[in-house]
């Protein structure tokens, strides 16, 4: 996918952006000693206008993405242009500012723009690197299939519980019922496993990676007094191990998808704030022209 974004139409937008940057650097370089660089020279106004129009256009990607019926370019093309032109805005706006910063609304807009662009760079990084691992982890399937299998394993596991000895029943059923998946922001991003199990003493204890219950069942198999119980325990053990594998994949899936999406919670709100800051920047400039 990312190759298509980068090399869309023979990297058409890469060349567009490079061309735009060269033109803007040329405009900036036309400053001279009697007309030193600043945002208020004709060069500064030109660069500022180009930058502002680019930012508005780049924001439009969010609208275009949702217009499935639009035939105005492909989303892929828009995304490719979004990446390259978005990067060029960083340079164009820096030229516009002539790198003069201060505690004011103008620098505030610049900082917001930088945060938006750098969060975009992070987004680009994860979109390049994560989808392969995500797909590998799902073994070609989907999260839905992983959950379906887990649900099936849970149902089968719970149906096996009555066949086990009474003291094991509570451990086994609680290990299934108190398995934690996902959770809050931190739990999702860290892949934290908060699963619990009711121990032999009746106290809830950590069942990290389902290892506690697996160990309990594995130790019980040689001690099984009835053949039927031994069979049930062996079946339960293989089922728990399979659960362990599936749970790892689900947690990894949630974690990777979290990292794949977390930047949008920065990128999008800051983009909206940037548009507002841009308006404040422009209006305040002309109030005190």
């Amino acid at each position, binding site marked *: 996918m990312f190759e298509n974004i980068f090399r869309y139409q023979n990297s058409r937008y890469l060349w567009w952006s490079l061309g735009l940057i060269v033109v803007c650097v040329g405009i900036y370089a036309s400053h001279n000693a*009697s007309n030193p660089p600043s945002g*208020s020279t004709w060069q500064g106004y030109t660069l500022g206008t180009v930058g502002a129009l680019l930012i508005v256009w780049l924001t439009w990607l969010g609208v275009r993405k949702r217009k499935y019926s639009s035939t105005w370019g492909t989303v892929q093309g828009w995304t490719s242009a979004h990446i390259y032109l978005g990067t060029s805005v960083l340079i164009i706006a820096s030229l516009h500012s002539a790198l*003069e910063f201060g505690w004011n609304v103008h620098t*505030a807009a610049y900082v917001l723009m930088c945060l938006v662009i750098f969060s975009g760079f992070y987004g680009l990084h994860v979109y390049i690197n994560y989808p392969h691992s995500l797909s590998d982890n799902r073994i070609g399937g989907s999260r839905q299939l992983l959950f379906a299998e887990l649900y099936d394993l849970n149902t089968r596991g719970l149906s096996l519980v009555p066949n086990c000895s009474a003291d094991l029943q509570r451990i086994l059923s609680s290990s299934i019922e108190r*398995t934690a998946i996902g959770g809050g922001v931190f739990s*999702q991003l860290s892949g934290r496993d908060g699963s619990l199990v009711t121990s032999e003493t009746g106290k809830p204890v950590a069942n990290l990676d389902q290892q506690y219950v697996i160990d309990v069942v594995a130790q019980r198999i040689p001690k099984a007094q009835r053949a039927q119980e031994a069979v049930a325990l062996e079946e339960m053990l293989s089922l728990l191990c399979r659960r362990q594998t599936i749970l790892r994949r689900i947690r990894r899936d949630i974690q990777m998808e979290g990292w794949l999406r977390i930047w949008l*919670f920065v990128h999008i*709100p800051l983009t909206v704030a940037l548009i507002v800051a841009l308006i404040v920047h422009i209006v305040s400039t002309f*109030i*005190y022209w």
Partner: protein
Amino acid sequence: MELLLRELQSTTGFGEFIDRELSGDKITLGCAHDQLIQLLGTDIQARHAVLSKSGSGMRIKTTGSHTVEVNGERTRSATLKVGDTLKVGGHTLVLSEPPSGFDAAMELTPDSEVDAASFEHAFQTSLTDTWLSKRIPAWGISLVVLLFGMLIPVFLLFDGDDATPDPESSVFTDTFWSSGPLHPAHQQTIGEECSACHSVPFQRVQDEACTACHNKTEDHIPTGHFVTQNMPTERCAVCHVEHNEPSFLIVKADGMCVDCHADPTQLSDGPGHMRAVSGFDMNSHPTFEVAMLKPEIKKAGTGLSFSWSMYEALLEGAQETSNLKYPHDLHLDPDAVQTVNGGRGMQCADCHTLSADNEHFEPISMEAHCQSCHELTFDDSAPQRQLPHGEPIEVVQMMEGHFARTFADPAKKASQQSRRRRPGRSSSSSQCTAGIFECAMQRTRTEVTNQFSVSGCITCHEVDDTGSDDLYTRYQVYPVRLSHDFMPTAKFDHRSHLTQKDAQGDDACLNCHEAKTSSVSNDLLIPGLRNCNQCHSDSNTSGTVPLQCISCHQFHPLTAESTNFLERNL
């Protein structure tokens, strides 16, 4: 509360069940794994409701806006008694008579349609399920930016009679709009008061904002000058741009000047004689011009009337006509001239005192600078008597009076005859045998002729002998006028130029001013461009001290008068 939950197993259909004992003040109910009663279903929330003990029965209260069904009615809270049916999603819970040791008992018939999707729903597996939001921070940050960046400053700006908010009263004023610091001088006088210059919103800064303080600054070219027809008339702020860091309020680049002056014909099609400038060497800069004084002599009755005019001349070949005879070479020769008190050779600073502006020199006067050597004595027998340094008529009158008294005094007359004569002085008076008055007049005539044509006044002054019989009007002394400023529109710092390697005092002066070889006062000792170029050039040439146009020239003349330097110097 102790609760017995009996879960009927639907899989076998044989009335199998699992009993569970739940205890706690509050029994939580929802689809999340940490709930005491976990009920799966896509329409059941993570933390859906809470059960608590209420009298002999139980009370159910949902969290948030979720609902449950009690005996067929949707509700958010209800008291449950034995026999009541509670439906949560597809699950049915019926309250039954609690066995001993329990406060309540429930029989759960699970939803038969629970599947993997409702199982997945029980977990928070996406960031959108968490508190994270895009909309809230988007609105929040935008509001903060809008409020502090625009709304509050605008409110303070237009609020009330006072157009300018007091910077002390609020942190978030229009100073947030400032794109950079003011020039320190402006910062000191204006401070945070934006409206001092930005008087009308959405209007560019007008010149009145500048001239309110800078009321002495003149235009580069006087209003009405023919050149202004081709000169763009710009606002002050077009060149003087504020709020930049580093501040470049005054643009010092040569381009500001030479862009136009490299080809002055484009500036004017009038009668100007402006010469092209593109740099500071012999090829790119015109040779210097000087402002010269010219005496104009007219016959006026028995005497002469003098008027002075000024004219511009090329430095090279310019001859000064100050009407003063002064050989610099002689005065600077220690073998020929020495100071009265010190007994040393003369130095430049003995006569030339640098003014406070470090450019010009204090005026030179006979009394202050010459008279200590050049006494105005005229009678060897009366060395204390000196002629007045004034009009010839006063000189004649003073001599007449002096000699009348001398010849009337017998003691003095005797001494006159015995004294030795100084060479060059007439001795005829000493032999006068006529009456006192005749002798006195005869002696006066001799001495006056001597002063104005041999030695005395004529040593330093230009004297016109009219040949008149009237001694009072016979000799006319040309008035002296020394030019105060040969380059009135140029700036030059003499003091900084006195600091030279291996040259101090007079040597530093004489490095530029060729006074030691100047024998006549017509010589203009102002050094030319070639002399400057020994050390200086424009910034395009390396190896020299670079000069910019405004190092020597002023863009804005100090006063309107100085635009016409010819008048100023008179």
